[in-house]
């Protein structure tokens, strides 16, 4: 017999209550003085015996009532081998709904196999079982809280469609599922985690949140908790899959070409011709023919311009003449519109009369030309021009980017508000103009932490300056890597501010003579960019070239996304990977293994840094010191997000190690045998027994009272 709620046995202490009451009652027999007891002696003995007997009987009945109730609360379960309805079980299904579950294995996708498995589990479980469903894609969500029926879970699973291309929040989902059952007291508490268990879903290490939940659940439930990790990972020799999807921008902006990059891999062991198709809203838009070496991962780019703000379903497909286990995936793209940009125009009054001839006007026009011309809005941006004195009347959090044009210094309160907004994720673009006094700017704006560089006065350039190369490691500069038509080759500068970058700033664009033209710096969750020139034609012809609008839009997109150097180990094709190892490890250089398996040895500099430029093939590259073990191997990706590089299914040992639980095992769907123990829960019978005893006690009390009357 097992007690499902053994902790409630502490309530058994209540059994002492009637005994204590009984003893107290015995002790407190009132003493009544009577003139004589000589007339009582004859009947004394029989009366007391009778009373004591009734008293003890009632005490026993009360104790029995309490004992049965305590036992019922403790919920004893008697296992009876082969018969009995079995205990009510808590079953939580944690389902990976990332796009990897769309991989086909033997004619069925992983998600379909998961549905079939859950249906099998439901069919073999107790109809009174309490089910829950947690889905994990970008975030984990409780689709059905604990208490749902198996049929409800099946219905919810039927509508679950894997659309998310990134790493699934499996840890969060598992923690949610474990937390659900940790507070329960059933005999059987089972958490099924259905996934392909990609490595990137178990980052960062150690997986403390899930491990803590697992530990807490184990502590609370002990052997009554079972965690089934059911892997639907396709076998490498037979399968291929779209394993992810990248977008060129964090946010797809209406009117600008969005780069959509499906990540797929050839797992067949033979070179394959793959046709990759892009469809938007169900309409075929583009297709590519790609030759995939055996075992290679590949990323291809599609560019598509969305013209309407909406949630656009974007689909990729492989085949139909591609791999046997072809794939199909979709992503929802949130097309944003009408981001608000605030232009604080510090130009003295009277100079900003004609929008097209002032700096603020040129900025506003470039950001939202259609709206200024009364033709709607196709850029998704709305520019609003205000004077510095109006700043305090505005709520800065309504604006994605704040452009300080021709502003030397803001009032102290306004400067603090702007800086705070930037730290919270807003972008600041500083465009100095004729009105800016360098010394005062440095004292108030740069020293205040808002500007990424100090200004050293205005310099005329003769001959005019031209732009040098972009800093390609910077997210902003990276966008100019392949866009030759939008380069700044035709742009010249006749005047500029001399800018001295402050510590922590990056010069994203400089002139050919090295003068910084665009300096950026991260401030909290936001970013600040400084153009070292005015956009007026008297300073540069930038606004008159076709590069002006894209540059400004990319600047605004970069600043509004608040992104910076967090891309980390991900680079794009043609970029140079730079890494640093411990100098002691670098005696013989490093080995770089590209996605095709080719290994190249690279020498390291004296300071331990390594530069590798042969990044022509998209995919995952592995770097390790020559002769070192695989444990010291590092990975970087080309045209992939770093996390996509770690999509390899994890094994038993790795899962145990990451979740800090030696009892975890990874099973295939076929190995998961639905079985439920048989037996009875006795609490109902115990409650009935308690009620019967209570009735007997009430009857005896009634009889005593009646007799006394």
């Amino acid at each position, binding site marked *: 017999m097992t007690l499902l709620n053994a902790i409630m046995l502490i309530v058994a202490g209540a059994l002492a209550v009637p005994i204590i009451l009984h003893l107290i009652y015995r002790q407190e027999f009132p003493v009544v003085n009577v003139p*004589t*007891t000589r007339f009582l002696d004859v009947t004394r003995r029989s009366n007391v015996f009778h009373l004591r007997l009734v008293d003890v009987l009632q005490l026993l009945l009360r104790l029995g009532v309490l004992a049965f109730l305590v036992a019922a609360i403790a919920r004893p379960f008697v296992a009876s081998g082969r018969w009995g309805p079995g205990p009510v079980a808590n079953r939580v299904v944690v389902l990976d709904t990332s796009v990897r579950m769309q991989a086909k294995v033997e004619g069925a996708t992983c998600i379909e196999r998961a549905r079939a498995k859950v249906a099998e589990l439901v069919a073999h479980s107790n109809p009174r079982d309490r089910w829950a469903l947690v889905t994990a894609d970008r975030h984990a969500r409780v689709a059905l809280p604990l208490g749902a029926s198996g049929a409800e879970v099946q219905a919810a699973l039927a509508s679950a469609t894997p659309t998310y291309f990134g790493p699934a929040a499996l840890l969060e989902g598992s923690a949610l599922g474990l937390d659900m059952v940790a507070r329960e007291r059933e005999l059987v508490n089972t958490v099924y985690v259905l996934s392909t268990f990609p490595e990137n879903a178990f980052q960062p290490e150690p997986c403390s949140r899930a491990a803590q939940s697992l530990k807490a659940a184990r502590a609370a439930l002990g052997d009554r908790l079972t965690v089934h990790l059911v892997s639907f990972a396709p076998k490498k020799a037979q399968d291929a899959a779209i394993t992810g999807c990248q977008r060129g921008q964090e946010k797809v902006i209406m009117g600008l070409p969005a780069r959509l990059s499906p990540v797929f891999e050839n797992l067949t062991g033979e070179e394959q011709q793959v046709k990759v198709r892009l469809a938007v809203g169900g309409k075929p838009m583009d297709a590519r023919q790609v030759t995939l070496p055996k075992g290679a991962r590949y990323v291809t780019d599609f560019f598509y311009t969305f013209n309407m703000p909406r949630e656009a379903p974007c689909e990729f497909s492989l085949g139909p003449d591609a791999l046997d286990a072809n794939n199909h995936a979709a992503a929802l793209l949130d097309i944003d519109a009408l981001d608000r940009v605030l232009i604080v125009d510090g130009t003295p009054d009277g100079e900003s009369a004609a929008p097209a001839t002032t700096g603020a006007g040129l900025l506003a026009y470039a950001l939202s030309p259609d709206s200024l011309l009364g033709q709607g809005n196709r850029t998704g941006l709305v520019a609003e021009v205000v004077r510095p004195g109006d700043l305090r009347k505005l709520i800065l959090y309504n604006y994605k980017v704040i452009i300080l044009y021709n502003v030397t210094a803001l009032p102290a309160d306004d400067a603090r508000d702007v800086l705070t907004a930037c730290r919270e994720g807003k972008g600041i673009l500083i465009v100095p103009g004729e009105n800016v006094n360098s010394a005062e700017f440095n004292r108030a704006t740069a020293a205040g932490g808002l500007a990424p560089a100090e200004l050293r006065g205005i310099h005329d350039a003769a001959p005019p300056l031209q732009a040098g190369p972009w800093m390609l490691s910077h997210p902003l500069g990276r966008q100019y890597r392949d866009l030759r038509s939008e380069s700044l080759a035709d742009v010249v500068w006749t005047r500029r501010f001399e800018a001295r970058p402050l510590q922590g700033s990056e010069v994203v664009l400089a002139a050919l003579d090295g003068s910084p033209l665009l300096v950026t710096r991260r401030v909290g969750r936001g970013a600040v960019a400084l153009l070292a020139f005015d956009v007026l034609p008297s300073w540069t012809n930038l606004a008159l070239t076709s590069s002006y609008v894209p540059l400004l839009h990319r600047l605004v997109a970069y600043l509004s996304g608040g992104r910076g150097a967090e891309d980390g180990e991900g680079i794009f094709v043609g970029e140079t990977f730079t890494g640093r190892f411990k100098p002691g490890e670098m005696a013989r250089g490093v080995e770089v293994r590209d996605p095709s398996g080719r290994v190249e040895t690279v020498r390291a500099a004296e300071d331990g840094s390594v530069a590798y430029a042969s990044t022509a093939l998209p995919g995952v590259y592995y770097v390790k010191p020559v002769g070192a073990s695989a444990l010291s191997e590092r990975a970087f990706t080309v045209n992939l997000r770093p996390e996509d590089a770690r999509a390899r299914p994890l094994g038993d040992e790795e899962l145990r190690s990451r979740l800090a639980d030696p009892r975890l095992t990874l099973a295939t769907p076929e190995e998961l045998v639905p079985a439920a123990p048989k037996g009875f829960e006795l609490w109902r019978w115990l409650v009935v027994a308690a009620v019967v005893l209570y009735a007997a006690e009430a009857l005896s009390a009634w009889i005593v009272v009646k007799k006394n009357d």
Partner: protein
Amino acid sequence: MPQMSHLRFLDPKVLSSIASIELKARLLVQGMWASRHRSPYYGQSVEFVDHREYSPGDEPKTIDWKTYARTDRYMVKRFEMESHMNVAILLDASGSMAYAPQSRSRIGKLEYASYMAAGLSYLALHQQDAAGLITFDTGIRDFLPPRQTKQHLMAILARLDGIQPGGETGLRPVCERLAQRLPRRGMVILISDCYDDADAVVDGFKILMARGHEVIVFQLLDHDELEWPFDKLSNFRDLETGHMVRGDPVALREGYLANLRAFLGRIEEGAKSCGMTYTLVDTAEPLERTLQHYLLRRLHMFR
């Protein structure tokens, strides 16, 4: 005035109800002073008794000359002597008299008995008789001999005020001792619950009767004793012996009342067989009514 607290026993309501009623001796009494009660001696009352031969020394004025004319013999007329009466109030001060009733509207047994003794003392002194107070348990505790003075009432009241109940009841030795200390025939009024062996109680009565005393028995019981109103399981403690009995009073009641009735019957029967006046007093009855009722009944009985 604490020192005058004993005056509380002279309840005007009681006194006014009995003051006009005479407490007259039924038997002959031996008093020292002429009064209204019949005496075994010859004296100078108006009640003629008989003649006797004249003997030298008799006063000549006592010679009945009409008889001499008829019989030619000197005969002297004799008249009854009427004297005062000694009233000894025998008050039980044993532990059982200390019983405090369940109902707070009633006074205790000893209190009731004290009021009764005070009222009877007042009545005796009011009619020029002598009153005395004897308290007892298993023996005589306090003996205040009968006196006829008005100041003696204060002494009786003070003794009543100072009674501390305790001990068991032993009526027979008390009666034996009392018979020795009361040489003159008079009236003995016993106020007690008589919780002693019934035969011993009756023997005590007989001893007093044998000495020529008129004995009036007021067997005083609280209403609780007569009704046994207890209903909770309790430890019942005997106020005289301290003996404890645990029991269900509801179940005990029937047996208790039967035993009590039998006991009371034996006392009453014994008292009446000795020619005594027996009255069972319930403390639930107002004292003035109890006394008035008894005195009037006695008056009619001996008229």
